[in-house]
């Protein structure tokens, strides 16, 4: 995947007027109130805003992990908001890399296995190619010497970096990262952020990240502030 811009323009991800209600009955909350947004190839976008404003909820919708109550989502010009579960699943595997706010790893597996997990599903590489790529990604996030550690034997920050390496595994067109540097010190935050921006530039990937760190936000190509379920400008 090179940085060439094809006919589908350079918009990797687009959503319009997303609405999402959460909770049941009395507790039903209008969490997202009309979110519209575009993520361009080669661009890093930061979503910022106070806790509880709906950043994670937005990212889950964009990552096709959840369905909006209203509004549309296009992934590489394909309308995905109403498509079937299997189409959404396939799109997740092929085009989207997701970093959860609470860095989820598969507990019984090594760092290397965790990073290989999405590649195994996609099945485009041979076993040794997958292992080599996973090792190099772990090296990129500064974990070259801990590839065979089990997830449970890694610190919070290390687990977070494994999760980032995993999100990059299939070279997705879109990387959605929910506070990818939340648990990292300044030095590692810098490493991770540099990696993400470099990938965006080199591979033409669209990176959308949520952050509370103003330094990180200011280094992004675009900042989208959110408040009470809406982008404000």
């Amino acid at each position, binding site marked *: 995947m090179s940085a060439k811009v094809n006919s589908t323009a350079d918009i990797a991800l687009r959503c319009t007027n997303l609405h999402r209600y959460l909770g049941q009955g009395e507790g039903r909350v209008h969490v997202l109130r009309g979110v519209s947004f575009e993520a361009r190839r080669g661009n890093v976008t930061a979503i910022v805003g106070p806790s509880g404003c709906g950043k994670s909820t937005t990212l889950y919708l964009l990552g096709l992990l959840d*369905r909006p109550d209203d509004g549309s989502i296009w992934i590489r010009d394909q309308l995905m908001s109403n498509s079937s579960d299997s189409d959404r*699943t396939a799109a997740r595997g092929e085009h989207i890399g997701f970093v959860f706010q609470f860095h989820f790893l598969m507990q019984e597996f090594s760092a290397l296995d965790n990073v290989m997990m999405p590649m195994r599903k996609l099945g485009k590489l041979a076993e040794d190619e997958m292992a080599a790529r996973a090792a190099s990604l772990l090296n990129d996030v500064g974990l070259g010497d801990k590839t065979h550690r089990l997830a449970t034997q890694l610190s919070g920050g290390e687990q977070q970096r494994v999760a980032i390496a995993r999100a990059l595994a299939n070279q997705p067109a879109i990387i959605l990262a929910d506070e990818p540097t939340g648990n990292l010190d300044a030095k590692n935050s810098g490493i991770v952020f540099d990696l993400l921006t470099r990938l965006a530039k080199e591979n033409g990937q669209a990176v959308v990240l949520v952050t509370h760190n103003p330094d990180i936000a200011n280094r992004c190509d675009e900042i989208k502030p959110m408040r009470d379920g809406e982008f404000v400008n």
Partner: protein
Amino acid sequence: MSNNLRIALRFLTARKRSMLMSLSGIVFGVGFFIVTQAQTSGFEEFFVKTILGTNGAIRIEDKLQATMFFMPATNSYQESEFQLKTPREARKYIEGVEEPDAMMKALREFRNVSGVSIIVEGSVIADSSFKNDTAKVLGIRLDDHLAVSDLAAQVGRGSGSLDDFRTTPQGLLMGLELAKRLQLVVGDSVILRAGTEQRRYRLSGIFTTGVRDIDRIRIYMHLGEARSLLKKATGASSIQVALFDRDRAPQDAAQMEQVLKHGAQSWQEREVSWLEAFHALQISAALTVSTIILISGLGMFNTLAMIVIEKTKEIAILRSMGYTRQDIARIFIWLGAIVLVIGTVGGWLLGAGVTYGVSKYPIHLRGIFSADNFQVHWSIWHYVVGTITAGVVVMTAAIIPARRAARLEPGDIIRGTSQ
């Protein structure tokens, strides 16, 4: 290795103890299933062998009256009744086989027939110097009869010798129980009386079939002797037939009836009540032992349902990476399949081991057969049916949690766990 299987193997370790419990339940269930089936069918098999070795696979008796045709006036067995149709229960039989040697020849034409023996039979009173008792004499040609029975082995288990019988025209072979009651040993002489006839014989051998009802009354003697003692110069009471393939006996018997116009009874028909009893025993043993498998299936269901709950986070991660609902379902089906495979192989080994051990266990059984240790029958079908039973139970137990896991929505899980 399939990636889903790889994941399943790791999940397996999540609940080692309850997995091991379900696993051992399946091992024991399958194992005992095999053992009980091996035993019940072992005794059945032994019983069948005993009765085949004693009374043969098929017995030809009694001429079927040719009611479809006009009887020749000279027919000495002619009866006044006349029928056009002959449903089985309405058929008329005439006692005995009139031309046994011709019949023998005809029987040997059947491909499945391995031996044929003419029997002239009659009731006698046996007199020893101590006691007398009623008995049933079977006149045979020794070599013919050896080909349709286990008489050699039966004498081997008793006393005396067949050679002595063969060379002694006045020789007798007597059932063990009868000999005991008459207080006779090999070499003793005994008087047999039939009607007005009365002759002295010598006991050449004592046999034991294991079937008490037979050992208590049966005496074998040479065919010629039987003819003169019983005053049956021609004909035969019955013809005992041995088969290569005993399971074809009912078809063969039916065909013999048609062709030979004599009643022919297969061993399955003759021993139907015993065979049904064995069958009922076998099924009830299978059902009883299957409950062990069923209970371990419930345990298995429980364990898998717990793993699904414990692993919802992992399920969400996998789904977020592009793993489909089927992938998730397959992971849990694999979990069931792994336990099933290990459990059934373990069950086979346990079953085979215990079956072997039990077959060496001494018991003393007399009555419907004579056995000195537990009888077992080795059949692949016991293993197949045990495996199918375990397979159905375990896979049912796996499918329900697997479907539940597949239905989970990644968004719901992530929101639920991250709060």
